[in-house]
């Protein structure tokens, strides 16, 4: 029976960049286990020969022309920014590396 431990929930919360309090962790883990158990019921339902559906409609090759279309002004882009400086988004110091 699939289960998510409290530690795993904490790890997932880190992956998802959400701070969860101890109380939240205590609360969430059992709820998630219950949900997971119920959704795990579908394992084995579809054999490997059944292709996955990623789209209900069988569309392919939807492209646009390589032609410039007017977008937003810098003012519009920055209007809702929590912080801006020199026409750029000001963000707190970044710890990780670029990828």
């Amino acid at each position, binding site marked *: 029976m699939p289960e998510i431990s409290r530690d795993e929930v904490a790890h997932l*919360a880190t992956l998802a960049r959400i701070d969860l309090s101890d109380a939240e962790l205590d609360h969430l883990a059992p709820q998630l286990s219950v949900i997971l158990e119920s959704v795990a019921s579908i394992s084995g339902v579809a054999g490997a020969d059944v292709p996955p559906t*990623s789209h209900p409609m069988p569309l392919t090759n939807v492209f646009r022309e390589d032609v410039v279309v007017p977008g937003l002004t810098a003012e519009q882009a920055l209007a809702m920014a929590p912080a801006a400086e020199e026409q750029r988004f000001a963000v707190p110091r970044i710890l990780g590396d670029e990828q």
Partner: protein
Amino acid sequence: MSDLTRTTAADLAAALAAGETTSVALTQAHLDRIAAVDGSADAGVHAFLHVDTEGALAAAVASDERRAAGAPLHALDGVPVAVKDVLATTGLPTTCGSKILEGWIPPYDATVVRRLKDAGLPILGKTNMDEFAMGSSTEHSAYGPTRNPWDLERIPGGSGGGSAAAVAAFEAPLALGTDTGGSIRQPGAVTGTVGVKPTYGGVSRYGLVAMANSLDQVGPVTRTVLDAALLHELIGGHDPLDSTSVDQPVPGLVEAARQGAAGDLSGLRVGVITELQGEGYQAGVLARFHESLELLTAAGAEVVEVSCPSFVHALATYYLVMPCEASSNLAKFDAMRYGLRVLPEGVDAPSAEQVMRATRDAGFGDEVKRRIILGTYALSSGYYDAYYGTAQRVRTLISRDFEAAFGRVDVLVSPTAPTTAFKLGEKLDDPLAMYLNDLATIPANLAGVPGISLPSGLADEDGLPAGFQVLAPAMADDRLYRVGAALEAALHDRWGGPLLDKVPALEGVAR
């Protein structure tokens, strides 16, 4: 002109065309109604998160001027509409029912909003919803719940409870909703209104804040089938900004509704889905459902039972596909470019990562966090095949069941939701119990087929509305309107008028 707020959109359009009223009068009447009954998070219907009095009236004035100048007009020009707060609207906040987007005003309009504006419909405001469309009761809104006009201690359904309640409370003749697992249809069922989920790709998603991209659709929320057809035709059709939108013309929906209203369904084959009735379905809901079947038969339809065996897996499949896509869609809310920014307490010079974490903890509610964690888990390396990958294959089985069924019948039917409106707070502590509300609506989203819910009557045990769901093959949305209109006409005959004539008066509740 009798109470403008109790008139259907089609009749309002006719009145405008006949010069019997003005858009300003209509719009003002609805704004007055909103002021009288909508109240706030604590009392009243609370269907609206934001009312745009100024903007709506300005648009109404412009509409009247166009009409006076003899300009060519869309049929619905001047008829006011409400928009679910998950759709981007320039100049108006778009919160998705979440604190993380409190006060966010988009710099662009969703395509469907653009189409409303281009057609001249005044936008009354933005309606309440479960946070990021995750829920079946609108109790997960960060701004307080919406209440069911039939009983203010009950839920109006979700995630689009606001739009449905607004229409049921006569605060708007028309509204836009979105449906990912039933978020238009289920509120329609529990509020006695009409709600349609179009064929996937039939209506543009550009500007719809995505929950589950492969399942979401925008659709009409109205009081009548004809009104829904009018609104659906206006917003539907190909959009080059949405790569998943279908490049085929919307079939004649208004035409189908008018034809259906004549009441003749001879030659129609109707399939009752075996797996979507019986245990778990409230007796009163089933009773109204069976009566509606009898009415379809009386109209000339042939009703048979059809089994769709993989539908029993639909709920589990949905609660895998949707959180996975949603967990990725919601990653963009990180306090860097817009929305809430919360600094972690007691941390000097916090890093970007710390600010993201504190913000997302403060800005997202419990249900959203649950689904993000679940989705993150199911997409993790080592788990993809077992969860998301498997779910996408079960989707194929569900689509195949629909295909096989539609080989034998023209439409499929079921009760829209297993129960009538439950009390506020009743299912909040039991997420799984909450998810069960979507049992009957989810299969359509997984397969991309269109569905409608229209009122089938009041359940005997509680006097609350139940809904009748019709499903059609992809691109055959017109069948929903034909069958829906026919059933609606028969039911109105039986009731002596629309079901909403019976909704309790709301005057004075907003105090």
